[in-house]
């Protein structure tokens, strides 16, 4: 278990190393299948590193521990990223990387609760995570639990009306145990998210719905640590959102530079190059 209140919480340097290892795990899974949403995984790795190694309470040997903070992945296609984080957190064994996306694997390409320890909900049909999070947040308060519910959404997912039904409800019920994370990589299935359905000004929108909003560079680990800390400790009786601006393919320069698409192309010879690029980032 990581105790975020302990003085010995991981340093920013080791959080960077965790993020790097999460990127490696994700790339290795992508290599197994020759595909996967690695662009998103590389982009969200820093956020997941801070979530799993600084902010969230969990027990590697007991992923269903009742005192855990719940992490809901509504964007099921980001499963490769969460698997990587769960592997790094010791909730999933590293050997299972080899099974990614294969028949019978616990690591299907879209995240589903019944398949994978640590996967709280079945994502994939976007817009369902935050409504479920509202119910869990209310239920945890009813149980007298001080656990948090964290829901990772994408900017595209904000197109879904149910997200805003839940946003209204969370503020109405003063769910101060609810933290929404929005990955703003400005990319969704049909193109740039801002072109598909404009979403700015994003922080102002959440604030107008009654939320405490912070907008952070999703690759600035000290900033993410501070934002998570504030989200946890804020006394205001309102839900909290961390809007994280990220870059798809982060950490692999030739993927960062590639023309942005929802499903980023990686050629067979490029997987090892990508891993080398990640490792080069470690020594840089």
């Amino acid at each position, binding site marked *: 278990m990581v105790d975020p209140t302990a003085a010995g919480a991981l340093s920013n340097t080791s959080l960077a190393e965790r993020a790097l290892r999460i990127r490696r795990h994700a790339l290795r899974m992508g290599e197994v299948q020759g595909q996967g949403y690695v662009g998103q995984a590389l982009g969200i790795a820093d956020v997941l590193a801070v979530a799993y190694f600084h902010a969230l309470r969990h027990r590697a040997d007991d992923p269903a521990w009742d005192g855990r903070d719940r992490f809901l992945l509504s964007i099921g296609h980001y499963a490769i990223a969460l698997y990587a984080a769960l592997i790094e957190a010791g909730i999933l064994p590293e050997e299972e990387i080899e099974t990614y996306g294969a028949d019978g694997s616990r690591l299907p390409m879209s995240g589903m609760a019944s398949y994978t320890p640590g996967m709280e*909900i079945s994502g994939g*049909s976007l817009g*369902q995570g935050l*409504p479920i999070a*509202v119910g*869990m947040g209310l*239920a945890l308060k*009813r149980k007298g639990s001080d656990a948090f519910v964290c829901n990772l959404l994408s900017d595209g997912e904000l197109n879904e009306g149910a997200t805003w039904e839940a946003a209204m409800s969370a503020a109405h019920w003063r769910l101060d145990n609810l933290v929404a994370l929005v990955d703003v990589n400005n990319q969704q299935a049909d193109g740039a998210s801002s072109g598909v359905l404009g979403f700015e000004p994003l922080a102002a929108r959440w604030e107008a719905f009654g939320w405490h909003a912070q907008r952070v560079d999703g690759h600035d680990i000290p900033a993410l640590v501070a934002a998570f800390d504030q989200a946890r400790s804020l006394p205001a009786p309102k839900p909290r959102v961390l809007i994280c601006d990220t870059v798809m393919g982060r950490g692999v320069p030739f993927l960062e530079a590639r023309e942005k698409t929802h499903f980023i192309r990686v050629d067979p010879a490029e997987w090892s190059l990508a891993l080398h690029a990640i490792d080069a980032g470690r020594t840089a």
Partner: protein
Amino acid sequence: MSQSATPPAKPRLTTSAMIASIASEGQRTRPAPFGHALVKLARERPEIVGLSADLAKYTDLHIFAQAFPDRFYQMGMAEQLLMGAAAGFAREGFLPFATTYAVFAARRAYDFIAMAIAEENLPVKIACGLPGLTSGYGPSHQATEDVAIFRGLPNMVIVDPCDAVDIEGAVPAIVDHPGPVYLRLLRGQVPVVLDEYNYTFALGRAALLRDGAEVLFISSGLMTMRALEAAKALEADRIGAAVLHSPTLKPLDEAAVLREASKPGRLVVVAENHSVVGGLGEAVAGLLMRSGVRAAFRQVGLPDEFLAAGALPTLHDRYGLSTAAVVAAVKGWLA
């Protein structure tokens, strides 16, 4: 349908009101059986919580909300949120009852019921008012295809109670079921019918309420009440009609249906408060075909169309659900 050629003698019976009673004149009724049954059960089951999408008052959940205000969650007029939040409660060990109208659950919130609740086999109990044709308000509030929608959903149990007695039996039974349930709710002043029969609700079981040699009604919901009335009327014409009440639409009590439908010489009439597409009628027909049971087969149900607005008795006559219409149809088929 809301206009009448002659001045109405009873205005109450000729209005396309949203809320209308299915009780006939002088029929015995009990108020809000769902709400009272839930309160009774919730005293013993602290994990029961109630959620509604701005329709607690019209789904009788307000009775529960008054008894247990801190266990009632108003989710606003947001049915997708309602179902997602109910799933969240169930994930944390609670037994949530989520109420709205059947149209909104089946049409608007279906994906949330499918993925957040049914795919996870969570014990969310979805209790919905205005099933089938129980409102004169028009297609926006007439859930004529709700059973067809939910029958296709794996893990979902569908219960279509006949009366107050059935509802009072169904509430504890569906709580004991470990998965999701869709309950077609009769609310307000609900007829009391089944106490005249040796009957108790059992989930997944159909019950033969009466026997007869010429006709076998297989029915659910309020159409069991109509089938019983029709059977009495047919009896006066020396036509014997059996009534097999099948309040659990899924899983169907296949053994009971096959046992009764296999008895030779009877016209099988499936009667349901639902479209003839995708409901009990087609479920029974498919079962009989698969099982090699050949019987004369007819359906009483709603046509495959958006229905008119109007007074409920008018509409039940027009679309063949009234007792008189059922009797006339059966006599025609037997002729």
